[in-house]
């Protein structure tokens, strides 16, 4: 009988499994339709739109002043960058000159925001990998300190509405800079702490080394940006390649991995980026000039000159762009967002093919996707 069984051609079917949208590790509501051959993923189809809030439609139906309060919600972990992208696009059109002090404050708060975003990613990524031992509280400790500082100047923990068209909303008090300086002094030691726990942890290495390798050609084909493409060996960082604001005057390194990036490289790149951001904040505190902080009068009936333009900033997830068409009225004619999460997520169907199902979350988490940013 046994020999007969060996001769039988066992029929193995591919299995279609639905994953999400309510899944603890998808950072929101992403639904994946997986085609599995045993444990191996053969095909992935992401289904988006569960968080679609018609942000572009609202841009056409709100005044400029109303809309700039709304767009922090596009990417709730890095609200400063969405505000900044919109502000830059509108300033380009309108020919507004932003005061230098405002530019330094913008760089300062956005780099703080970049650190908070990477810290939250670090904490949740370790949970995604199964590290349920309380590691997330380490990065969240520092994140809370930064959010307190941001709350002090903006009035809100995460939906700041601090960067406005023409400048920034208000001047921080002198004590605020002292607090921030103290934070930047102790922060590198804290990063050392995280690294001591995570970087050479054998379980972490086993889960991340050689997993989810993003080839350079694939990344370019899919328009991937941010830390993901820098880990694949392309030094694309808008702060350096198309410097905006006061970045030409600041010294910092662009973190580029000189090989085909795997999941561990993307972790390391974000750790190193936090160190660079910390340096940038310290330089900004030292160089901050006195002066005005607003170059355009803020009022409900604000108008932007007619024309069209595209402006982008380097957000924690990649190139965050904003394409605005104005007719000179109180509302925009057309708003279009280029969201880094949307573009980076599209490469997922390429990355997941032929990986075990257990690696899905390790790979998906390492791209650092924010679902409200995908769905808008």
């Amino acid at each position, binding site marked *: 009988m046994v020999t007969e069984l060996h001769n039988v051609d066992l029929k193995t079917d591919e299995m279609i499994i639905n994953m999400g949208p309510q899944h603890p590790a998808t950072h929101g509501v992403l639904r994946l339709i997986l085609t599995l051959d045993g444990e191996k993923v053969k095909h992935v189809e992401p289904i*988006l*739109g569960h968080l*679609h809030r*018609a942000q*572009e*439609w609202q841009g*056409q*139906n709100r005044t400029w002043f109303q809309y700039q309060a709304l767009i922090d919600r596009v990417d709730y972990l890095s609200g400063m960058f969405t505000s900044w992208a919109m502000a830059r696009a509108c300033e*380009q*059109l309108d020919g507004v000159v932003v005061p230098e002090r405002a530019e330094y404050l913008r760089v300062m708060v956005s780099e703080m925001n970049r650190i908070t975003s990477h810290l939250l990613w670090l904490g949740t990524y370790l949970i995604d990998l199964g590290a349920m031992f309380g590691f997330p509280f380490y990065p969240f400790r520092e994140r809370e300190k930064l959010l307190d500082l941001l709350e002090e100047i903006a009035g809100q923990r995460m939906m700041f509405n601090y960067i406005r068209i023409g400048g920034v909303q208000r001047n921080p008090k002198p004590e605020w800079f002292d607090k921030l300086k103290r934070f930047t002094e102790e922060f590198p030691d804290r990063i050392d702490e995280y690294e001591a726990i995570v970087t050479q942890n054998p379980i972490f290495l086993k889960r991340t080394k050689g997993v989810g390798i993003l080839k350079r050609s694939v990344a*370019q*084909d*899919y*328009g991937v*940006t941010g830390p993901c*493409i820098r880990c694949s060996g*392309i030094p*694309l960082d808008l702060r350096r*390649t*198309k410097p905006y604001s006061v970045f030409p005057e600041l010294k910092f390194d662009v973190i580029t991995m000189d090989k085909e990036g795997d999941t561990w490289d993307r972790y390391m790149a974000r750790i190193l980026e936090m160190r660079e951001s910390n340096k940038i904040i310290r330089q900004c505190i030292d160089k901050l000039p006195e002066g005005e902080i607003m170059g355009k009068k803020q009022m409900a009936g604000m108008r932007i000159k*007619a*024309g*069209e*333009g*595209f*402006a*982008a900033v380097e957000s924690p997830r990649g*190139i965050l*762009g904003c*394409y605005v*068409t104005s*007719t*000179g*009225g*109180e*509302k925009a*004619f*057309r708003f*279009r967002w*280029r969201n880094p999460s*949307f*573009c980076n997520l*599209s490469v997922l169907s*390429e990355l997941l093919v032929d990986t075990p199902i257990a690696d899905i979350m390790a790979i998906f988490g390492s791209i650092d996707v924010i679902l409200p940013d995908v*769905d*808008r």
Partner: protein
Amino acid sequence: MTHDAKPPAAPAAPLEPGQYGQFLKEHGISSERLVDSCGVETIVVAAADLPPALKLLRNSSEVKLDLLITVTGVDNNDTYDSVYHLWSYEHINELVIKVMTKKTDVADGRLPEVPSISNFWSAANWHERETYDLVGIRYTGHPYLRRILNPWDWDGHPLRRDYKQPVDGLNDKNPHSMR
């Protein structure tokens, strides 16, 4: 959906072709130059010329516009525009390409058609799906042209100027609503 004024009018005299318009002309693709959008060259090409033009711009070693930033659909006053923002991974080159389909050329009940580029440029895949979903431009030859942000059975294209919102069962005044 209301808007205050008309979009910027085209200048009376045709503009001289810029750097990229000249490059395309040398390779036998004609284009028309528009007013620069915030200092970035903006050109219009015919729908049929779009895939060869993008292939040329992406692959040539001198131009190398190999980063597709977005594909945007715009419901303009007289035209449906499909707008392509091209950047480069290595240089600081930028270009905006538009394909404009006149509204009078689109038959009733049909969608404007533009050739898809997602067969040779994967970055365009989701952007084209989104533009189809929200603005209603049909990208011919797209491998999987389905709605991406709205549910698959959604009616209409929400970013069209003539789009009517579905009846809101909770908040509107009609007698059949739930209130």
